[in-house]
């Protein structure tokens, strides 16, 4: 199992690789957009004036990753890929150029958010491995089979899964399964149109963490966190995920301070290393936890555990 870390600059790549990431993912700043980018985020966010990187930094970052035996996933997971026909060729060529520059820089695979993007790459005989993004909202084995038969090599499952479900999905042969280690909103990424962190100048907040006046037939409740079901951590489930054959553990964090992401990557990487050393689940978890106890205690006290039974997972459909 590899730990896959977000990278927003050469400097952040050094930190993530140093923390033990076996794979990194990033998006580039070149492309047709100004605020938005092909990486499903804006080019900047609250903590970082730039989270996508230019061509020369991309080359250096990839070289650094390869020197550390880590692979580089190139993000092209903008949720839409569509245009009325009159101007389609222009944007399609821009997309092909975006991918081609990435390939020329040495990327190892492309993360794709839409089947149309995949078909376009294949039509242009671009034969790089394609991974199905979380934006394709995969939550069952039939969808994994569909994507495998199209030619995808890996599928990232949605944030909201149960370990028994992941176990069944991992039985689909011939395709790798990636799951999230941390964070994630309430809505399915690929099925949510309440976009944020997309280059907005207004503070739109996080719609699924915001408060609402909730009006039902029998009551009005003010300032209620109606959607707040975010789950933060999966450290206690890593052993199970490791055993069932999950190939990649994805860390999110392009929108938070690099130091926080680095600590998260380090802890998960250590936990995986201990499991590879044949340590039992809880010992591996406890040892990784204790090496960064102050940081993890804060998260752990919130009891927002991914993949485990809770009020949130009980309401999964």
């Amino acid at each position, binding site marked *: 199992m590899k730990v896959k870390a977000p990278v927003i600059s050469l400097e952040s790549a050094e930190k993530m690789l140093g923390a033990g990431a076996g794979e990194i993912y990033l998006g580039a700043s070149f492309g*047709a957009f100004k605020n938005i980018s092909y990486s499903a985020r804006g080019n900047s966010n609250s903590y970082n004036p730039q989270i996508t990187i230019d061509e020369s930094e991309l080359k250096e970052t990839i070289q650094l990753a390869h020197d550390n035996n880590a692979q580089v996933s190139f993000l092209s997971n903008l949720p839409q890929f569509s245009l009325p*026909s009159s101007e389609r060729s222009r*944007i399609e060529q821009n997309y092909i150029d975006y991918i081609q520059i990435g390939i020329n820089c040495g990327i190892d695979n492309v993360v794709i958010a839409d089947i149309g993007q995949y078909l376009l790459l294949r039509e242009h005989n671009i034969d790089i491995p394609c991974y199905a993004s979380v934006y394709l*909202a995969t939550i069952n084995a039939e969808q994994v089979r569909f994507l495998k038969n199209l030619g995808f090599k890996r599928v990232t499952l949605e944030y909201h899964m149960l370990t028994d479900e992941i176990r069944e999905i991992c039985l689909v042969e011939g395709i790798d399964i990636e799951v999230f280690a941390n964070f994630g909103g309430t809505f399915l990424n690929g099925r949510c149109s309440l*976009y944020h962190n997309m280059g907005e100048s207004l503070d739109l907040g996080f719609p699924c963490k*915001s408060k609402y*006046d*909730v009006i039902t037939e029998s009551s009005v409740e003010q300032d209620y966190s*109606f959607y707040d079901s975010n789950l933060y951590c999966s450290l206690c489930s890593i052993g199970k995920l490791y055993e069932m054959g999950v190939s990649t553990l994805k860390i999110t964090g392009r929108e938070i301070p690099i130091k926080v992401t680095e600590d998260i990557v380090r802890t998960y990487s250590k936990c995986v290393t201990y499991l590879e050393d044949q340590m039992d689940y809880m010992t591996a978890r406890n040892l990784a936890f204790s090496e960064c106890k102050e940081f993890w205690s804060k998260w752990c006290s919130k009891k927002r555990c991914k993949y485990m039974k809770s009020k949130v997972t009980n*309401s999964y459909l």
Partner: protein
Amino acid sequence: MKTALFFRNFNEIEFSKLEKGSCVFIGNEGCIYKLPCKDELQQLKKSDETIEIHLITPLVSQTNLQLAKDRIDELISSKLIASITFNDYGLFYYTADNHKDSGVKYYLGRLLTKSFSECPWSDHLNRNEDEHVQKYMNGFVMNDPRKIKLFQDMGVTGVHLSVNKKNIAGLNEISERGLDIIVHLDTIIGAASRICSQAQYHDVKYPDCKEKCEQPAVLKLSRLWSLKEDGYIEPSEEVKQVVPQYIVAGNITYYRNPDYNFLIDRSDSIKYGIVDYTFNRPQFNR
């Protein structure tokens, strides 16, 4: 354009109020428990043989995959339904593979056909982009000839769309490529989740959640959770203007389509114009 009624729950249907030869879409984009069963549809057909029954199926978790497959197998063999709408690629893939030439039309649902313009503040996100990029962002994900061909080859004959003034050009193009267009006139889907926020809010589980779900909740933004401020803040006036009032039914968050009247004027290329029964009940009157 033929007008159709959308019922999320079979129990909502008042047989006596349906006109002869009515067209009804039954089911839900998000909840497996709202899929009607064969007995229910037989009951409906018995009340009026000429009624046209269309099924809407939800996103399907691995836990509920077998239940969904069994229901699809049962309903296709029953010959009671005219079409099935899929909001999950996995369930569609299973059905296309196992029920070729079933005589039932296959449509892709709104969770699979969305457009960036369904974001209530898409104009703000698009504000500095070049004109052709704005058009690109406002297209439907189905504005792609390769994808249309892939799905047509798998048996898809139509798509459900949330249409507004910004993405109307995309609708025309999809229609020209031979797909039936089914437009939801009242609502746009803001977001879908695997988490049923309504069940969570009322602290109930299936089957007790059914009753709550038939009474959608209305949400008005009061406090933003800001990453920048690392806490809750008062939304600005500009934000208040772009964030609509949400209507939550189960795990799907809708909002009113502000371009309802615009759609009525452009009904030529629309096969079915769907009216949402739940949200047209008196308590949800526009």
